[in-house]
């Protein structure tokens, strides 16, 4: 008993404070304070999300309003100073062109900002398609089990077995050919090809996570309760299970977005993506890295920071919603 109320014992529960003597109060309070500080310190700082959110907000604002912002040149206007074309990496980072000019005399900063449009759009829409298709497949597999599950699981496992980049390269190439054979696919620009490819990459991991979650949720008592009140399968899926899946889906989507953006950069770097892409800029200027580092490093930095931001947000969400995911 004395051991329990001993103020020197840091494990003494707070309820015992009213039993200990008055002098002991102060020391115990101090200890509780120290304990709280320790707990606060141990908590992972929110700096990460804050940085990620700020960076993405600034990037999004700049890229959306780029046309109206006076300090951003058009991406397709060559920089001229006193009538002279600033091509061949003539301008380094400085006042006239913040991040210098590239081989053709284009403003690297302006291009980095404008191209964020394509990057973000591709990332967002392929994640959305991935969520829609992967989510539907995962929910069907996890809820109905049996044959449905077997077919979907085999499909997903096959997709996961092929290295992502190889699959992406294969798909983009293949879509090039398919596009030529079928005239009704005329709407499919290069950008849609990439979106389609990346969404196929996103489907498999999302389907897997959603399937696992659905399997756990369908055994929950509130689902049984809903069934015992006469709810049908669709109603249970959409009213009971889907809302409970949202935290997981959002978390995985945030992390996945970063990965897809990196993949888009990789495709562009390999010459399979858009020419209006950070990856393409990196590829075009990398031979001159020693002489004109700015033309390569700044697009690299943009890609890096964007992916990092999404990952930081994703990590925070995962911790918040307690989502334990396998490496996507």
């Amino acid at each position, binding site marked *: 008993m004395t051991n329990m109320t001993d103020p020197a014992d840091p494990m003494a529960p707070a309820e015992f404070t009213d039993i200990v003597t008055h002098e002991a109060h102060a020391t115990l309070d101090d200890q509780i304070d120290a304990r709280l500080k320790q707990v606060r310190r141990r908590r992972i700082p929110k700096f990460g999300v804050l940085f990620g959110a700020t960076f993405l907000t600034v990037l999004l604002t700049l890229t959306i309003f780029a046309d109206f912002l006076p300090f951003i040149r058009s991406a397709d206007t060559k920089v001229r100073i006193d009538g002279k074309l600033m091509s061949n990496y003539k301008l380094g980072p400085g006042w006239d062109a913040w991040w210098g000019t590239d081989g053709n005399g284009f403003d690297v900063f302006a291009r980095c900002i404008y191209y964020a449009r394509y990057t973000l759009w591709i990332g967002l829409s392929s994640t959305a398609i991935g969520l829609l298709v992967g989510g539907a497949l995962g929910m069907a597999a996890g809820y109905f089990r049996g044959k449905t599950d077997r077919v979907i699981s085999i499909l997903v496992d096959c997709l996961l077995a092929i290295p992502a980049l190889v699959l992406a390269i294969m798909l983009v190439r293949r879509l090039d050919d398919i596009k030529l054979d079928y005239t009704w696919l005329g709407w499919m620009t290069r950008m849609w090809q990439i979106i389609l490819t990346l969404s196929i990459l996103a489907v498999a991991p999302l389907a897997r996570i959603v399937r696992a979650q659905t399997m756990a949720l369908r055994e929950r008592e509130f689902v*049984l*309760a809903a069934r*015992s*009140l*006469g*709810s049908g399968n669709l109603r249970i899926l959409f*009213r*009971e299970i889907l*809302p*409970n899946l949202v935290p997981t889906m959002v978390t995985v989507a945030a992390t996945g977005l970063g990965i897809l953006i990196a993949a888009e950069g990789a495709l562009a770097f390999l010459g399979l993506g858009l020419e209006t892409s950070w990856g393409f800029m990196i590829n075009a200027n990398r031979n001159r890295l020693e002489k004109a580092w700015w033309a390569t490093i700044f697009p690299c930095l943009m890609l890096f920071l964007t992916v990092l931001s999404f990952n930081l947000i994703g990590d925070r969400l995962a911790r918040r919603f307690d989502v334990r995911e396998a490496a996507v």
Partner: protein
Amino acid sequence: MSIGSPNNITQAATRDIAGPLLELTDVRTHFRTPRGLVRAVDGVSFTLDRGKSLGIVGESGSGKTILSRSIMGLLPTKGTERSGSIKFAGAEIGDKNRKQMRHVWGKEMAMIFQDPMTSLNPLMKIGDQIAEPLRIHLGMSRADATATAKRLLQDVRIPEPERRLEQYPHEMSGGMRQRVMIAIAMACGPTALFADEPTTALDVTVQAQILDLLGEQRRERNMSLVLVTHDLGVVAGHTDEIAVMYGGKLVEKAPTKRLFAAMKMPYTEGLMASIPKLEQPSHSRLNVIPGRPPDLVHPPKGCRFAPRCPYASAKCIEEEPPLTQTADDPSHSYACWFPVGSPEYHEARARIAATAGVN
């Protein structure tokens, strides 16, 4: 099937039907598992009249939950073998599939679960959860459903129902949530309500309130209630009849008062003896039934309780006793060769007392 479509079982039809509301004949529910066939429910028969309440009592693994879910048809279909007949309001429902049962669930039969913390959807407002069955079964408009939901919350004695409708389950206490569950279950005016350990997860002080509420709603709505529990104290004041289950079988069934006064099964006696008494001095040892519940894959050959029964003789281990009616009261039946009060029982008791004295 005597009636054409599942829709024929409507409230109106079951409200004034003659004969028992629920009639079970030799219901068996077995599960195929890697260990073998688990005989969770093994030949249970009973009837339940309109507006009456039945308590199903037994320890963990006695099959009481599986029995109630078998009646509701809420068990997984895979790996489950069901047989026997379950008649609800005169119509066979034991052989119906999920699609057909959907018209019965909620509207005719509803269920309340053990843990109100997990049986409500955490992401849906209370109001929407109550309104859902109303909209599914009765096709109510949103406004009508909300009004009815409010009235239901009042019925289950929840103060400030309007504010509660807009709240999420985590904003309520366990007792409140169980009240909400009861409101949801009663939304469509079912004729039979199954309550599966409705008070086990609740605070003792709230238990009585919830049980009183259930009893009150049963009387008001002329609803049949099946109360599944391991706690004889719970059923004592709240049911008309009690059925005691052991090892997947019904071992004794009697009107509540009679069961407490003149139990026949040594198992029931053991259950009664294990209830702590107020007049006992503090720190007195609790009476327990020694041993553990039978393995339902390989149940004992004779009476399933024989291995744990203090009065068991050779006959008990070899032959299974049938469920028989008592001579003086046909509503009281039991399955035991040497029931409490028989000469053999007294003999065995004397023997036990003698050996206890020697030690």
